[in-house]
């Protein structure tokens, strides 16, 4: 990538996104504090510091649940795509909340013993061999370490250094962090409480996350197995050109390789790889803006005729040949030679 690195590439949208995030966190924590301090039954009232560290933990868990909801929701409906755009700020905020939660736990529950607080955190409860009274703190520590690695590598510098595939594989550890946090709450806070509120909220959140991921994954698998009609010579049937909305695409699945996005720009038909070089975003769900296909995830752009990102960027994706025959668009499943410009098919009789 040829552009200079900045801490954050600020846009007005990102600023309002972050303002909403900050406001949400503050409202959540104050509501939790007020609820727990004012409405807890007599005799069960915890100290303010205990309520505060629980509020931070609950806020981090809720934020992580929201973060994990965004991915499958955006795959199920494009309405949720704006949330995805700045998801990494949610992730870093979640890590910071969890870090303060951990620091307060260390201070309050382990800071006054003769033992080193860090050792005490892992060793003060030795029943690692029992589910009942399991030292759930250790699970939180592992989850916090995962969140740390993810927050530390959330800058696009890391996407470029590690490569999108390894970056994504590293960041898929978040699912294990989530499972660890669910276990951390279920074996920790839930065990000591009379009210089933925490158990219900955490259980329902985990169930919702699992359900949405399974549904979204099942839909993707179905799309991958529903191959485009292919002739022996490698041409895939796309459909009538005017079925493709202007500036948008139809996505077809070739027998092998990545999906292909077939775009209509006025009377011209182009075909490019459906996979964005940045993080694998589905280009075919994006639009043509200023003559460039724009990724719906983070706004990376490519020229549809040669697959090159406009200067100063250097990314390039595969382009495919198209043709129109008897009012039907076909795309060839083999990509055109790299860097070569592919002439668009023009819809006959249409106004340019």
């Amino acid at each position, binding site marked *: 990538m040829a552009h200079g690195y900045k801490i954050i590439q600020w846009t007005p949208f990102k600023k309002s996104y972050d303002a909403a995030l900050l406001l949400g966190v503050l409202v959540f924590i104050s509501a939790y504090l007020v609820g727990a301090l004012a409405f807890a039954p007599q005799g069960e009232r915890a100290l303010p510091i205990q309520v505060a560290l629980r509020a931070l933990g609950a806020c981090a868990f809720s934020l992580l649940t929201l973060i994990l909801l965004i991915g499958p929701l955006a795959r199920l409906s494009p309405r949720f795509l704006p949330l995805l755009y700045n998801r990494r700020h949610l992730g870093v905020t979640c890590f910071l909340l969890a870090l303060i939660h951990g620091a307060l736990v260390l201070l309050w529950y382990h800071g006054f013993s003769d033992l080193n607080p860090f050792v005490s955190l892992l060793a003060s409860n030795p029943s690692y061999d029992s589910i009942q009274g399991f030292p759930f703190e250790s699970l939180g520590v592992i989850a916090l370490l995962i969140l740390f690695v993810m927050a530390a590598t959330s800058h696009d510098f890391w996407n470029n250094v590690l490569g999108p595939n390894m970056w994504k594989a590293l960041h898929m550890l978040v699912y294990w962090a989530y499972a660890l946090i669910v276990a951390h709450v279920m074996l920790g806070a*839930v065990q000591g409480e009379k009210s089933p509120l925490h158990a219900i909220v955490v259980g329902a959140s985990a169930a919702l996350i699992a359900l949405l991921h*399974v549904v979204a*994954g099942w839909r993707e698998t179905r799309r991958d197995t529903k191959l485009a009609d292919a002739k022996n010579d490698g041409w895939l049937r796309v459909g009538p050109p005017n079925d493709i909305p202007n500036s948008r695409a139809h996505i077809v699945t070739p027998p092998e390789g990545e999906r292909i996005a077939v775009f209509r720009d006025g009377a011209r038909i182009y075909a490019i790889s459906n996979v964005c070089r940045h993080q694998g975003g589905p280009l075919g769900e994006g639009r043509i803006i200023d003559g460039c296909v724009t990724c719906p995830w983070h706004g990376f752009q490519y020229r549809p005729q040669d697959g090159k990102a406009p200067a100063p960027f250097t990314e390039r994706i595969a382009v495919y040949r198209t043709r129109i025959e008897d009012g039907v668009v076909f795309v060839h499943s083999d990509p055109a030679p790299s860097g070569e410009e592919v002439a668009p098919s023009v819809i006959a009789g249409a106004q340019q």
Partner: protein
Amino acid sequence: MNRAQRRAHARLWPILVLVLLSVSAAALVAKARIDSAAIEAVAVLAGDE
């Protein structure tokens, strides 16, 4: 998502669902045991008086 990422998700989620279910079930069973033990203890204490 590209094909490799979709495959990674398809491999991960069945395992993750099992893990989430078994952890939650084990925790709730443990909690039910603690609660019933506590109720018994209260009953024993009440019987002593």
